[in-house]
């Protein structure tokens, strides 16, 4: 069964450092999402791509976060500089189209010290 791949699974970094997360969606899925899940809460959307174009990044803190999907396949989410409040699970999801269900990867657990 096809799955969304994410790496790394765990990342520990110090405040003010740069971090990057990678996501490879299910093959053929045109829509890709990055969510952030703070402990004890539901995930919240950071950014949505349709192919290589950003559809929604209204909740992405653009002063420190950036996301790209250059060839419309895999994607990278970057944080620079990381802050203590960025500690969370970062989840990637993909779907065939905007009208289909979203399938999630295993996530990257970020701890900022």
């Amino acid at each position, binding site marked *: 069964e096809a799955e969304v791949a994410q790496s790394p699974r765990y990342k520990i970094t110090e405040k003010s450092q740069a971090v990057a997360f990678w996501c490879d969606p299910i093959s053929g899925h045109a829509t890709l999402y990055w969510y952030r899940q703070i402990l004890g809460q*539901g*995930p919240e959307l950071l950014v949505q791509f349709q192919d290589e174009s950003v559809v929604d990044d209204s909740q992405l803190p653009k002063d420190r976060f950036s996301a790209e999907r250059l060839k419309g396949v895999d994607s990278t989410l970057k944080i620079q500089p990381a802050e203590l409040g960025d500690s969370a699970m970062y989840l990637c999801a993909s779907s065939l189209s905007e*009208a289909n269900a979203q399938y999630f990867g295993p996530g990257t657990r970020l701890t900022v010290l």
Partner: protein
Amino acid sequence: AQSVTQLDSQVPVFEEAPVELRCNYSSSVSVYLFWYVQYPNQGLQLLLKYLSGSTLVKGINGFEAEFNKSQTSFHLRKPSVHISDTAEYFCAVSLQPILTGGGNKLTFGTGTQLKVEL
């Protein structure tokens, strides 16, 4: 804007007993509804979805949910739970993309921790 309320933060239940996890949503337009399950330190797994059609939706692992438009609810049920069902369950809603111009982000509830005991 749409919102989701999961009324119970924790639900303890004995193995083989039935369970219902409650979910209510708020939206002024038509929505899609989903239930996801999350095991510790893992991503979310889709249990079931309601897009249109029959209001009773069957999903994986013996779960089902019923869409009730008049009560704006989408409660999740299982007639007999197993220890392996212990996990966090999230209800989520999205607007139909035709209404948003393409964006269909999921808005999640705060989750319900289901704890199955022997």
